[in-house]
């Protein structure tokens, strides 16, 4: 399984990837749904306020929500239609957020934007285009792109890394984009490089997507400042800090952002969205997601309008199998299991993975047996077992000492835990408690 000699990070795991279920399926357009709830908060940061009222007719790509806050990203309509209501809806993580519910017109127009010469854009233009188009990280974290493109002045960025690892099992949407749209990815990368003044661009790709290399090389052409770095297939190779280390050997200091290490990491999908926003003025209102897993009748990579309910997508794939037992929004390592299938797709949704009973290995949590396997696999070199025991005892200072705040919840620890401890849920609790305690002290 391990490819010798490829660059990687320390620790991590080798889960079954099962990419072959969907990697051969070319990207298809998903049908336009009958009702589109578009969440007003799809990103990390301040929520948007609606710009439209009930009964308004809105156009495809029209801005329907925005915020004054810097760390925020506006939301655009993915369809032309009439606003049916502005109401609360549940997002994939179970939170209630405001949503603009649109009833699409029966005839959907093609997107008609501007045609811009992207070569003429300067750094400032690119950042404002990214903000205006509502770009966020499409790998899952959904951090507003224009914020990433505006690093502190004293932290110059010299390397932009395109995250083409797609290290989550089952997911293949980035793989398909690498195969089908390499020119757009490279064009997006060049825009990112210009926006932050980086000298070098690197595409960090896992060795299970070698079939994409030819197209990428062709798209790179004579650009000497762009390289491809083939990385070991290992989870979580695509985690920001781990990817930066694998590609550059630099370590992002604990609790700091990648700009501290002179790096900017952008996902494949975000890169294409950047290119489309710059070249055609197209806001981020649709994205490619993977529908895969043993519990779905047909796997697919679909171009989906933001706001499509996952039930509609599953139906488009022939529905669930008899033994389907868990529907996950995102990848199976970090995604959220859904009880209701009415949840809409948002900008950060990379896939819908349906697992069957035989895949879902549910057991009661046993007391920690201190085997140390979680310590061995932790890519942040934390002690997950002791974060758990400290959290169980309510010893928040110890939970912090063991690294609760430095955990990015990749789930390697729980994956390999013989005692079936849900470390991630303890870590979230510890983070909330430590955060609350720190706030209380500040006041």
């Amino acid at each position: 399984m391990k490819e010798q000699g490829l660059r990687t990070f320390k620790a991590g795991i080798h889960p079954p990837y099962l990419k072959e279920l969907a990697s051969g399926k070319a990207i298809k357009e998903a049908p336009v749904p009958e009702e589109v709830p578009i969440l007003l908060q799809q990103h990390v940061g301040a929520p948007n306020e609606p710009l439209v009222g009930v009964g308004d007719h809105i156009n495809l790509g029209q801005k329907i929500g925005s915020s004054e806050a810097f760390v925020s990203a506006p939301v655009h309509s993915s369809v032309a239609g009439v606003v049916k209501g502005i109401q609360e809806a549940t997002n994939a993580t179970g939170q209630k957020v405001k949503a603009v519910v649109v009833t699409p017109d029966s005839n959907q127009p093609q997107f008609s934007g501007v045609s811009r010469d992207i070569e003429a854009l300067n750094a400032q233009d690119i950042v404002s285009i990214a903000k205006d188009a509502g770009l966020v990280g499409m790998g899952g974290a959904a951090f507003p792109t224009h914020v990433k493109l505006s690093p502190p002045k004293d932290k110059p960025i010299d390397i932009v890394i395109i995250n083409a690892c797609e290290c989550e099992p089952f997911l293949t949407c980035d793989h398909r984009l690498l195969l089908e749209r390499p020119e757009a990815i490279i064009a997006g990368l060049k825009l990112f490089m210009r926006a932050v003044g980086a000298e070098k661009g690197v595409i960090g790709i896992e060795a299970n997507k070698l079939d994409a290399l030819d197209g990428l090389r062709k798209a790179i052409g004579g650009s000497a400042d762009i390289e491809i770095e083939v990385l070991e297939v290992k989870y979580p190779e695509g985690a920001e800090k781990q990817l930066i280390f694998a590609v550059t050997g630099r370590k992002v200091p604990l609790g700091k952002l990648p700009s501290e290490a002179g790096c900017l990491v952008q996902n494949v999908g975000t890169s294409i969205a950047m290119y489309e926003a710059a070249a055609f003025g197209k806001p981020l209102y649709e994205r490619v997601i993977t529908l895969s897993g043993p519990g779905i009748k047909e796997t697919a990579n679909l171009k989906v309008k933001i706001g499509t309910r996952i039930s509609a997508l599953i139906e488009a794939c022939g529905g669930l199998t008899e033994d389907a037992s868990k529907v996950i929004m995102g990848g199976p390592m970090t995604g959220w299991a859904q009880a209701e299938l009415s949840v809409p797709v948002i900008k950060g949704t990379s896939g819908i993975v349906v697992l069957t009973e035989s895949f879902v290995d549910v057991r009661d949590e046993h007391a920690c047996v201190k085997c140390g396997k979680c310590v061995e696999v932790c890519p942040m070199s934390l002690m997950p077992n002791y974060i758990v025991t400290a959290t169980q005892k309510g010893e928040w200072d110890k939970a912090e000492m063991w690294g609760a705040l430095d955990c990015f919840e990749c789930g390697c620890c729980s994956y390999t835990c013989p005692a079936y401890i849900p470390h991630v849920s303890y870590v979230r609790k510890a983070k909330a408690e430590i955060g609350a305690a720190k706030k209380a002290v500040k006041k």
Partner: protein
Amino acid sequence: MNRELLVGVSPHLHEKDQNIERAMRDVLIALCPAAVVAIVVFGMNAFYIMAVSMIVAVLSEFVVRKIFRRKTSVNDLSALVTGLLFAFLLPPTTPLWVVAIGAFIAVGIAKELFGGLGKNVFNPALFARVALMISPLSMYVSKFVKPFYWRHTGFFSNVITSIDESVAGRIVYKGITGNVYMNAVTSATPLSLMKSGRMLVDTVTGPTPVGATWLTSGGRPSLWSMFLGCKAGSIGEISILALLVGAAYLLYRRTIDWRIPAGILGSFLIVMLIAWNNPVYELLGGGLVLGAFYMATDWVTSPSSKSGRWIYAIGIGIAIALFRLLSPWPEGTAIVILHFNVIALLIDRYIAAPKFGALKKRWINKLPVSP
């Protein structure tokens, strides 16, 4: 699409075949070669000891958990492992009722009274062994016999129920088939021979061979007998070969961390080489190999970080060597590992590798300063 869907926190995948039962099953499999050698060398009595120990261990767990109203955990096989490991630590002459008491101490007290698997501070098997050693029952767990002694007593009919030392100059083992006079077959372990030999060298003029017919090399078992298991000792510790075969399996399955046996045996050997105290003989003698691969590697009672494990292992190796060299006792593996079970807690509290991206590369854990 109305159906019950499972929810639950990520990750939604779990490593295949990675659970407590699998690890325990691995240990049971790994102990099999040594168990077979025990029966061949010490007769069916070794089998009875192992069987009683395992049965009582499982029953104790079942009953004690019922009393504490804890969920039955017999399925995790850990009681069987503790039972077998405890049996391995006993001399082949241990009366079965003493075995039963020990197995209860191991599982009922050292494990369940501390809160069950995972919460125990001490390795249950070692705890019970040392508890018997310092109890009034110690005489029952300190009589060793020659290998293949069953040629004198019968392979099957040597179940020992008690030991009587009241007859002058004789040790009488009372078996269910009648009294067995075992003077002819009682033997010191190789390490105690070494110990007494060395003490005689110190006090009398020259080495005094401690003679017995089965000893082959200068009054002691040859290195080959030591390695293959033809020597006096606890039933599970004698065959280094059998223990290494099982250990190789555990290392291959990644059930135990190689760092612990490597650290123990390496540091032990270095101290013995410096002291020039017949290092190879010391390495093959006593419970060192059993302890290094099967006792000190116990998940629950060893540190959980790599760096911590090195410190723990090297500490154990040096301590066992010093114990054997400097104390009046021939062997100290059990006592030393038990002490390091407690030290392991401290190691885990204070030693941790620097976190990925830590600005200050500290190997010592400090509590965060409250703001």
